């Protein structure tokens, strides 16, 4: 087999004609898409980066000069460290929570019979069909102070004496975010489960493995790439989420996204807002690309 391959290989290499010109012709076809990409992504992004180096003053407005003032402020003022630390913490806790809840959810969903699976899939994907703002306001109505429905009910039942703190707390933001992000995790894990050979579980069973061993040793390692890619999606969406932290966290509990928003629209300090936004973007790209490379290397055998 290998001997035959080595003897035929040189012949095949010399016989191959030079690269035909035709294969290069369609390159210009990507031009419209390229222009669109450059025009609406790259140029604004470059302008934002440039903006973050401009100067700003209460009375002089934006001055198109190149200074490191904004970056220096972010690097030295502990206020920004707190904001970014909180953003990271919320995103991490949300990611872990969706993985812990979403992976078993997808596994159970996958084992359901056709009709029930359809109904429950719709229930899980349902939140995606409703605006984030509407969903988050729903949480606020349930747990918002003493007038929240759930709080009222719990207090009238005598289970709690004062309303559960939900608005303006990190716990509240995480709970609302987990609800919003769950479909992404479930879909990602479900896609991994679809690729599982159903006979593999039977094979493990015939070799003497119990149900827990099968899940731990056979199923989980195979769907881990799905869990991790779901985690990457959830993490990046949670870290840059705006609506949920804005409504639940409000002005009192700011994260990077709401901070940038406030700098732009309340303080009108566009250069500082741009610096915050660029830092958030750069951090996210770094984390996502790094995590993705790690996943692909670690699970090369499974995800191929």
């Amino acid at each position, binding site marked *: 087999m290998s001997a035959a391959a080595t003897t035929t290989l040189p012949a095949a290499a010399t016989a191959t004609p030079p690269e035909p010109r035709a294969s290069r012709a369609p390159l210009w076809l990507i031009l419209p898409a390229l222009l669109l990409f450059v025009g609406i992504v790259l140029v604004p992004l470059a302008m934002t980066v440039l903006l973050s180096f401009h100067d700003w003053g209460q009375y002089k407005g934006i001055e198109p000069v190149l200074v490191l003032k904004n970056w220096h402020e972010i690097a030295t003022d502990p206020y920004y460290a707190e904001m970014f630390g909180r953003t990271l913490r919320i995103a991490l806790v949300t990611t872990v929570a969706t993985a812990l809840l979403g992976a078993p959810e997808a596994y159970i969903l996958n084992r359901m019979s056709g009709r029930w699976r359809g109904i429950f899939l719709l229930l899980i994907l349902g939140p995606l069909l409703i605006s984030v703002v509407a969903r988050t306001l729903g949480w606020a109505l349930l747990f918002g102070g003493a007038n929240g429905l759930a709080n009222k009910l719990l207090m009238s039942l005598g289970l709690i004496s004062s309303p559960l703190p939900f608005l303006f707390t990190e716990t509240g933001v995480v709970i609302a975010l987990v609800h919003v992000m769950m479909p992404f995790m479930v879909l990602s894990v479900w896609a991994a489960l679809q690729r599982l050979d159903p*006979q*593999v579980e*039977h*094979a493990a069973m*015939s070799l*003497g*493995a119990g149900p827990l061993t099968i899940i731990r040793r056979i199923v989980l390692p195979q769907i881990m790439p799905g869990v991790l890619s779901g985690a990457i999606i959830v993490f990046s969406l949670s870290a840059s989420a705006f609506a949920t932290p804005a409504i639940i966290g409000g002005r009192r509990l700011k994260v990077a996204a709401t901070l940038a928003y406030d700098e732009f629209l309340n303080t009108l300090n566009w250069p500082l807002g741009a610096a915050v936004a660029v830092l958030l973007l750069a951090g996210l790209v770094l984390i996502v690309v790094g995590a993705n490379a790690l996943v692909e290397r670690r699970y090369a055998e*499974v995800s*191929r």
Partner: protein
Amino acid sequence: MIPTPRSAVPLLELDRVAKTFGGHVAVEDFTLAVSPGEFISFLGPSGCGKTTTLQMIAGFLAPSRGTIRLEGRDLTQVHPSRRGLGIVFQSYALFPHMTAAENVAFGLEMQRVSRAERTERVRAALAMVGLSGYEDRHPRRMSGGQQQRVALARALVIRPSVLLLDEPLSNLDAKLREEMQIELRQIQRNLGTTTILVTHDQTEALSLSDRIVVMSKGRIEQIGTPQDTYERPASAFVAQFLGKTNDFAARVEGASPARIVAGGWSAPAPVGLRGPVTISVRPERIGFSEEGLPGRVAARVFQGNHWLFQCETECGPAIVVRPNDGLAQPGEGEAVRLAWRPEDMSIRDMGLRAGAVA
């Protein structure tokens, strides 16, 4: 073939096993006793219930009726993980995240075999299937045939009481399939593991098995040695399914001595046979001769070691297979006469059998 080893106590018994899905009967009245060391094939077209039966033995499906006994013990209530059977699946069902060695070792880990013994048995099992040196490969980096071998090693390393093979060779190309058949048979002989093979490939069943269970529509059509089922098919279905066969419309003429007549061919009729009958003859048992059923060669196909002739006769179309012995063969359009020995023919679809009526 080697005579079937028989012992007084069957290893595996299926007693009137049946399986129904809703209103659909998948398997009905399946009774079989498998002796230790025997190689049994369940043969039939898809949907005949052979895989369902195998799954009931494995424990992935519960029988609707009947009992399955292994070494005299009722298996029906035993969980699949406690049955100690080795199974090779059609898709191989290897664990993709484990290396070949880890795949094979998994069953031993479940049995809590010590690490040292495990390593040794895994090495021996992979060597047995010719995969020494592939210990650290992942399944996705192996060819279909190699994955097949890992699956076989994984099933055999736990020393199963019965080895169940679910169409294990159907995903391999023809040449590899033939090689694996021979190897499978050798390994099975050497280990003496009782084996049940599910297949729709009659050649596979004929060449591997001690006994064949031919199934159709959930029922057993015939149980017998490969020669038995091929030479003496118990039903029209078995005759059609196992190899090709020619059906000729013939008549019984004259009385004492009565003769079966098919065109220019005739032979003494069995006592009491009367009227129109259908006789069936295997293609390789028909020869060209001076006398016999007149016909014309409609098409001739060269197949290497043999010739295939399609002939038209007054008793119906006929397929004739002749070995490529170097002698001259009739060409297309040529008139021929077909002849066969009376003992090579079976009489089916009988008209009136005088003896049966009386």
